[in-house]
């Protein structure tokens, strides 16, 4: 069997999701047995435009980024959105609550950045707002075990399985005491699982970094948050951190 050619690309992001590839440690050696990594700027000098699978990290902020993404899409047989910023806009979408003028002024003050393509930003977009996405690997950052499974499935030409049930399911499996009982405001009941309930297992609340499950019961979650003492406004704010796009729909 021919090894599929894999490329990694990044847009506005912290590059923490690509870093999880390097964080596979010794498993990297096995990974390059099943796929050919042909482009990975963060780690490789070589670059090839001939690839089968493109992993795209980051959200899309400028016309020049849109052009680059469209080129990647036109070359890739399969395009995978890697991580929260790519899948939903992630934390980058938090700035979408402000006007473009406000964010530019807030960070760059009076500096003259007009007519400069590097600063020609629009409200940040998830990858699927620009091109078609075949698969999504959620999370901030992506879970490296899940990433390994996805890469392995694609190398075997199988459809990767991404959970569509809430974090609570995994949290119960871990045997955790519900963090609501400790007065923490958890988004686990409506957030897509796959992280092994990482934050509640560390005695912290889920922040919803993997986005919402399909058909989440947001109203019931908002009621629960309010029952435990949040105002409706603060409950909605909690969602905004990683689910701004879903909440603004």
């Amino acid at each position, binding site marked *: 069997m021919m090894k599929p050619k894999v490329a990694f690309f990044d*847009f*506005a*992001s*912290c*590059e*923490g*999701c690509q*870093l*999880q590839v*390097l*964080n596979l*440690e*010794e498993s*990297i*050696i096995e990974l*390059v047995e099943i796929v050919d*990594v042909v482009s*990975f*700027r*963060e*780690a*490789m*000098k*070589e*670059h090839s435009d001939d690839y089968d699978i493109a992993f795209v990290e*980051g959200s899309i*902020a*400028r016309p020049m*980024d849109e052009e680059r993404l469209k080129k990647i899409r036109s070359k890739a047989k399969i395009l995978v959105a890697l991580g929260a910023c790519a899948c939903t806009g*992630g*934390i*980058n979408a*938090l*700035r979408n*609550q*402000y006007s473009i003028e*406000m*964010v*530019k002024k*807030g*960070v*760059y003050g009076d*500096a*003259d*950045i007009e007519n*400069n393509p*590097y*600063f020609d*930003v629009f409200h940040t977009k998830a990858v699927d707002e620009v091109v078609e996405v075949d698969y999504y690997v959620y999370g*901030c*950052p992506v879970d490296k075990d899940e990433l390994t499974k996805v890469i392995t499935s694609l190398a075997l030409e199988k459809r990767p399985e991404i959970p569509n049930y809430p974090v609570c399911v995994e949290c119960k499996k871990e045997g955790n005491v519900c963090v609501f009982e400790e007065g923490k405001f958890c988004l686990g009941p409506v957030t897509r699982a796959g992280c092994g309930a*990482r*934050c509640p*297992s*560390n*005695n*912290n609340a889920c*922040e919803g970094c993997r986005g919402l499950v399909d058909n989440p019961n947001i109203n019931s979650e908002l009621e629960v948050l309010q029952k435990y003492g949040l105002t409706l406004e603060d409950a909605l*704010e909690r969602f905004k*951190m990683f689910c701004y796009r879903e909440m603004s729909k």
Partner: protein
Amino acid sequence: MSQDSNLKIRLEHVTRVEGHGNIVMDVKNGKILSVQWQVSEAPRFFEMMMVGRYYHELSHIASRICGICSIAHALASLKAVENALNVEISNQTMLLRKLAKNAENIQSHILHVGYLVAPDLFGVGSIFPLIKTHKDAVLQIIEIHRLSNELSDLICGRTTHPVTMIVGGFTKIPTEKELAEFKSRLYRAKDTIRNIADIVLSNIDKLPNFSRETEYIGLISKDEYALYDGVIGSTDTGEHKIEDYASITQEFVVPHSTAKHARHNRSSYMVGALARFNLNSSKLLPLGQEIADKFDLKAPCFNPFMNNVAQLVEIAHCIEDSIHIIDKLLDIDLKEEEKVEVEVKAGRGIGVVEAPRGLLIHDYTFDDNGKCVKANCVVPTNQNHENIQKDLEAFAPTLLDKSKEEIEHNLEMLVRAYDPCISCSTHYLKVHFV
């Protein structure tokens, strides 16, 4: 290249660095008309994302500035919040934070030296071919990388973007057994880092010998090699208060350009491992000093390529320091502490740490409800951009007798030596000179 040659270099998206940057150089009749270090990364506007959020959410937003140094951003953020709201932390929390800081420093440095720079030492394009040709060396690099990542995991609940660190303490702490096990792994790592240093040393001739005197800025402390805490130190002007950071890291805009970058006493300064070494080398622990001696590295060193070696020295120092910290933690009877009660009030707070790439400052202002109304983050790579530019201007003329490929390779190696973290720095630099 001959004396009267023309040459255009357009290195778009320098590889094996974090983020997107370009090197552009024009040579006409054998004279350099311009050489520029440009940053084309999409701006992310983090300071605006923090405005309107509660104090307890800020460290989780801040960590997302950078996947490689998420712990440093979280710590600078927590320290700024604690400074604003007068929150005291326990000795246990301080020790655990220092351990997390060490873990990140090791992780970031071994990623750079082992995965990003080592290919230059072996004349290949990435670590992947080295898996076949130098498997033992690669496995030793991975051993240190894994160790540091698992230490971050143990203390912070996750390798990237810490979960457990909160204002005033931790949501979960490791057990004494887990810490004791780590101690024995750290002991073993001492020999591994010696071996890695020997491998680098045997290929050190691949790094150019280039020096340019500049100012070095970083945290300094009377008690230790400053990483978690200290005051601001400069090799030119000595000690400065944290509150005076804005006058040290003077951010400015170059005429006809849009960049925020920084200078202090001269036209540019450097932060990061080499800066810290130049300021703090007398406080190195024995293993760090041993690695420095192997390379005959002495302060002050003005060769930016030796930043790679200073990173190796710091890995060794941090391995040894982590063993000492674990000893202290095992001595103090580790326990889950009560969550610190925070009294919300309006005010301003500044938090500083040494991120792997240098001095990092977060500065927040809060309203009566504990919501952030203003945020400012001064990140290491911003502070280095101007120094990279000045180095390029001095280094490029020494390369003109080489082939185009060699010139490109050398310029790229110079930028890479700084280990720039461009996602952290969202600014664009453009300097013209003839």
